[in-house]
């Protein structure tokens, strides 16, 4: 895809191949490339570089249209974030990164260790709380996660925390009882705050393929997803499926994870992201 070449079927096939290999959904890919083909004919674009730039512009448009890409802060503290997603995607580590970032911005951060199921999950978050110098509310393994969140909200109010970030157990979106548990956690937050959580962040693994669509759909059914954290973008996977998530479900990407340290988090930049799809 580098260097000047004729604007022919082969070019569009190669662009299609690049998008598919970046995990962009095949139907999204075909729609976008077909629009591009039509535009190139109508506007008589015969410069392959211009075609490629046009494609990038189209994809950036999809990602940024009506997208609220900033993290919300409530005018009435505490701000509350719920972090959710399937197993092993990077929820706990992403929370550590957000904690470090907000702390450096002078915020008083509190973490809720509401993964009361997985072995050493509480220990893992506690180590991060200690490393980043933030408060943590936890109970014993096996406790009701909604009770931990409730405790954390009370503690946040009484201690004057600016933000509470709730870790939850990884759960496959196909497990009805686990999704019901998540709904319950969401309701507890709503009841205590008198509003929905300020952010419900779905963490996605950048190596994930088309299943991300099913994940996002099911999680959105259970809790009001406000944004995506795309983790592990420091690998070779491109995470292109988020284009479909934005296009079809309207979910914006808010943050990207770029490593395992607590500073390895960035705000999502659609232009950089789209360029990297073709890298």
């Amino acid at each position, binding site marked *: 895809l580098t260097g000047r070449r004729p604007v022919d079927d082969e070019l569009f096939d190669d662009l299609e*191949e690049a998008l*598919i*290999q*970046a*995990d962009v959904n*095949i139907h999204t890919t075909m729609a976008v490339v077909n629009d591009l083909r039509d535009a190139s004919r109508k506007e008589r674009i015969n410069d392959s570089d211009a075609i490629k730039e046009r494609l990038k512009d189209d994809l950036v448009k999809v990602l940024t249209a009506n997208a609220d890409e900033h993290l919300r802060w409530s005018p009435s503290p505490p701000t509350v974030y719920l972090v959710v997603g*399937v*197993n*092993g*995607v*990077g929820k706990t580590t992403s929370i550590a990164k957000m904690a470090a970032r907000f702390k450096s911005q002078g915020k008083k951060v509190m973490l809720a260790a509401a993964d009361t199921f*997985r*072995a*050493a999950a509480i*220990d*893992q978050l*506690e*180590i*991060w709380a200690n*490393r980043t110098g933030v408060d943590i509310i936890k109970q014993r393994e096996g406790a009701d996660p909604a009770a931990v969140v409730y405790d954390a909200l009370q503690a946040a109010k009484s201690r004057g925390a600016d933000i509470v970030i709730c870790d939850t157990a990884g759960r*496959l*979106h*196909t*497990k009805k009882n686990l999704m019901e548990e998540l709904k319950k956690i969401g309701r507890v937050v709503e009841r205590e705050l008198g509003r929905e959580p300020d952010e419900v962040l779905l963490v996605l*693994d950048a*190596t*994930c*393929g*088309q*299943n*991300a669509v*099913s994940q996002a759909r099911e999680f959105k059914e259970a809790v009001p997803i406000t944004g995506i954290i795309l983790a*592990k973008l*420091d*690998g*070779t*996977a*491109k995470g292109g*499926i988020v284009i479909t998530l934005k296009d079809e479900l309207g979910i914006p990407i808010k943050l990207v994870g770029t490593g*395992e340290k607590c500073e390895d988090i960035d705000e999502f930049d659609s232009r950089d992201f789209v360029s990297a799809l073709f890298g």
Partner: protein
Amino acid sequence: SLSEKLQNVFNRLRGKGVLSEQDVNEALREVRLALLEADVNFRVVKDFMGKVKERAVGQEILQSLSPVQHVIKIVNEELVALLGGSDVGLTFAQKPPTVIMLVGLQGSGKTTTAAKLANLMRKQGRKPLLVAADVYRPAAIKQLQVLGEQLGIPVFALGDKQDPVHIGKSALGAAEVGGQDVIILDTAGRLHIDEQMMDELARLKATLSPQEVLLVVDAMTGQDAVNVAEQFNSALGADGFIVTKLDGDARGGAALSIKAVTGKPIKFAGVGEKMDALEPFYPERMASRILG
């Protein structure tokens, strides 16, 4: 479903009598789409469709009375053949201990799978020893210890200030003293492009000479599965794969991709978070899952 989509294609072609090569190609396009939707790697799909086309554009399908069944039969047979033999067990050492090393990307399910494997080994009458060689992830050692405790299986750990190679080597001695005959080594998740971390695995393998180096792969992995499998395999020589989180609804095309590009067998399937959620890998089940 794929059979419904194929039925639509062939219904449109029914008035034509005998199907031409072009008609069959139209049907095969649906198969290609299904495989890409299932996360099978782009170039693996290309090679695979080449094989299918060779068989499909023969006389048998062109005059077949039930072309849908015929296409599905060919695709299914080719998938099962590619996904490989279903009872590729573990290789055990002539003289114990047997060493099994689990490797893979971050979060793929190694620690959980290590415990499940240890559980399986014990059910088979062996004496497993779990080894906590992840010194990087916060509470990784504790995670393995908690699982070991739940199972009543010993966990060898030297804390997180030691070099994993030293931990592995010491574990061999510990197994000898403790009378364990299968050592299952949990390693830290790492990127295939992280030279230093991949080198650590190479040193671990050189020190321990494991009978099995198993790459643990998440069933929801997309196109990148090929890169990961190729790099781990060329750096270490994988003996096989374990595909995890198959209890979800990921189609699991990554399984086909990793097998196709490395030729190494998929030995087990992780199907849940509990310690008994480990099954042998069944190619027929995987094939119909991928086809949707």
